[in-house]
């Protein structure tokens, strides 16, 4: 099981709101912070792990993940303590979401409570414990000191099942997350596009970037069809990337700019590489990984025949490159 990097996987509204809080925690916190993420399904935590990893990449840090299967909490804690002592700004993400994990969480939390000073003293980033919701009481009672130092608690409430007759094993995969490919078919994207983009433009003009980002995330979660104009999709991706860029979430911005390029052959490639690399480096500094990533993207762009076709973006008065000063 790995973090879900696929940006086409979106969360339901409630989970999206919780992600917004966790997202801001990464921006606001300075030094060690402790988060609890309680969830009964695994999809939303995986999506959040993927997004968190992207966000941290943009800052030059990492998301380091541990999972225990209910039998080895001691080993995980030992590794975690060693990682904390490295004194990095990475986010240490410990996840065990199976029902069988509860007894192990009890043991883990009690031991982690004893070692909390190690985290507070050495670690400079986040420590996020991802557990079933039933573990919340356990966290308070087995690790009262750790609980007392929590900076953020994210609770993902699973929506009620939409159909009956499925086993328990199938249910968690749907909870908290939805893929447009699996979502209800139809033309919901087309129906929502015009007014959403208008609202997004209004929000961006009013400097309400976060609101614009949420609107775009919701839009991109809607079902699309073969007939959905790809330029619309690309424009929405690019607008989302712009919001992320302005919020300092450069890694997510790059991913979504790439999606924009992928989804629309009309993009003006002679412009695109310049704006994004400059902004990206201005925000994050020219780290080796970002340089390499950018170089690789440029090579892909330059070798793509599709990028020389069409000109809708160049013609469009409200196209991203025209309206945001990417040049």
């Amino acid at each position: 099981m790995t973090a879900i990097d696929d940006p086409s996987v979106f969360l339901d509204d409630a989970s999206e709101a919780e992600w917004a809080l966790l997202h801001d925690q990464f921006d606001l916190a300075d030094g060690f912070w402790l988060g609890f993420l309680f969830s009964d399904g695994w999809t939303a935590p995986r999506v959040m792990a993927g997004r968190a990893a992207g966000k941290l990449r943009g800052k030059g840090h990492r998301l380091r993940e541990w999972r225990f299967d209910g039998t080895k909490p001691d080993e995980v804690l030992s590794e975690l303590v060693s990682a904390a002592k490295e004194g990095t700004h990475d986010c240490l993400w410990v996840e065990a979401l199976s029902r069988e994990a509860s007894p192990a969480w009890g043991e883990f939390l009690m031991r982690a409570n004893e070692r909390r000073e190690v985290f507070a003293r050495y670690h400079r980033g986040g420590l996020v414990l991802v557990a079933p919701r039933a573990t919340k009481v356990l966290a308070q009672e087995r690790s009262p000191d750790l609980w007392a130092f929590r900076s953020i608690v994210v609770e993902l409430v699973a929506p009620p099942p939409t159909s009956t007759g499925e086993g328990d094993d199938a249910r968690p995969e749907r909870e908290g997350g939805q893929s447009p490919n699996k979502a209800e078919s139809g033309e919901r994207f087309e129906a929502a596009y015009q007014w959403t983009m208008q609202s997004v433009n209004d929000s961006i003009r009013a400097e309400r970037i976060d609101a614009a980002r949420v609107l775009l995330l919701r839009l991109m979660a809607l079902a699309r069809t073969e007939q959905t104009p790809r330029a619309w999709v690309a424009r929405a991706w690019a607008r989302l990337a712009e919001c992320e860029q302005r919020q300092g979430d450069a890694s997510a911005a790059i991913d979504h700019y790439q999606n924009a390029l992928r989804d629309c052959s009309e993009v003006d490639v002679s412009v695109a590489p310049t704006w994004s690399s400059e902004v990206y480096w201005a925000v994050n500094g020219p780290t080796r990984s970002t340089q390499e990533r950018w170089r690789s993207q440029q090579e892909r762009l330059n070798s793509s025949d599709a990028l020389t076709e069409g000109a809708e973006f160049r013609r469009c008065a409200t196209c991203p490159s025209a309206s945001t000063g990417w040049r």
Partner: protein
Amino acid sequence: MTPAEVTEFRTTFFRRLTLGPLEPTDPQYVPLYELEELRNDDPVELLRFAIDTNPTPTAQLVSGFRGTGKSTELRRLRKVLRDSGHTVLLCDIEDYLNTGQALDPVDFLYAFVLAVSGAAVESVGDDPLREGYLTRLKNFLTRTQVEAPELTAGVKATGDVGAVKAEATAGLKLVLKDNPSFKERARDRWKGSLGSLAAEAHAYIRELAATLTKGSDPKRRVVIIIDSIEHIQGTLDDAAKVQASIEKMFTVHSDLLHFPGVDTVYTVHPYLKIKYANIDDFFPFGGLQIIPTLKVRERGDPTKPGELGAPRKNALDAIARVVEQRGDWWHLLGSGDEGRERLDTLILASGGHLRDLIRLLAEIVRRTRDLPATPAVFDAAVNHVRNQALPIADDDAEWLAEIARSHTTCLPSENKVPSLARFLDTHRVLCYRNGNEWFDVHPLIRAAVLEQAAAVKARKAQAKAT
């Protein structure tokens, strides 16, 4: 404010809403006990007075609830005593003992010796090797016939003084914590002769104290503060056993805790006072001082459980100063009377529990995109923090409702002490002082508790009727 200014304020204020203890010299520290109404109950002053006025060394207890400023006040005690010329060693016993296990007197004596030695090594300005602290400790362990290979690293360490100190103290912390065989050997060696080990430990500490005060005014004392004993707790399964071991330590074995030649202050869990009303008898010349939660409301009338006591303006003003030291809160909550009213609402919702108040403020900062925060954001943040303390089990709700009504612990039996300790640890119950201590359910969950308890009562009545 421009969006950039909003972001700047959110980031700066959020980062100042830290949860850890403060030094009294920290600009964010507010001397709450200078308030007229709190001055007579200042635990630091009471502890200092006992030390300064007793001709013989004292042993005292101090207790506080998580997040009410206990560790901060201990740091103030250290400063006050040092300013008076005393030598103060502040030791965190948690660095030396596993806090998830029952407290064995043999373990505790060794942990005490190791912790004090570690603090001495850290506090002296000179090379600890030259001062011979570690050699003496090694001799103590040899004398008490328990070897500790972990110490070798420290004794052999070379390099600059800082490196030697760091290596030596790291070694000391490993002796008991990560070495089950040491504990086994020690317990085996001193089985049935605890008094002899205590005599050795007392002699060692007295000698160490004499070294630390060599050549100074004889009125200057050595004060050892042992922090975090209240963190020793078992799991849900063995909580009663662990608590019994602590009670035994501070009652039956209390003589072990009176070290000759040094004044000692131990932090203990508040339930010790609740269960042993006469605990002061075991620690004369000081007894147990409780750091209460700052009282933001008067005690409600027990005959009117639905009514809250009146807000206390002085306390609200004092806590507002605490918040002000963290940042310009009026940007977040609004200026003028309206903003102050919102701040008071938060203070009252926190029940005077400072850490909870900081958490509420941080939650608003995290959620808001506008300044001041909208009522919707304000309410969402308060609800979010409230939900963190929920759900509550039905039987807990019934007990908590009784506490809310009577303002006493309503402890039904001694075997329920672990449950009461759990309430106190998780702030579901807060302790205040009006001369005597009194208790109340945390304001954030009070309504939910009363509602749930009423529902349980109704269900029970219905079941009985059918």
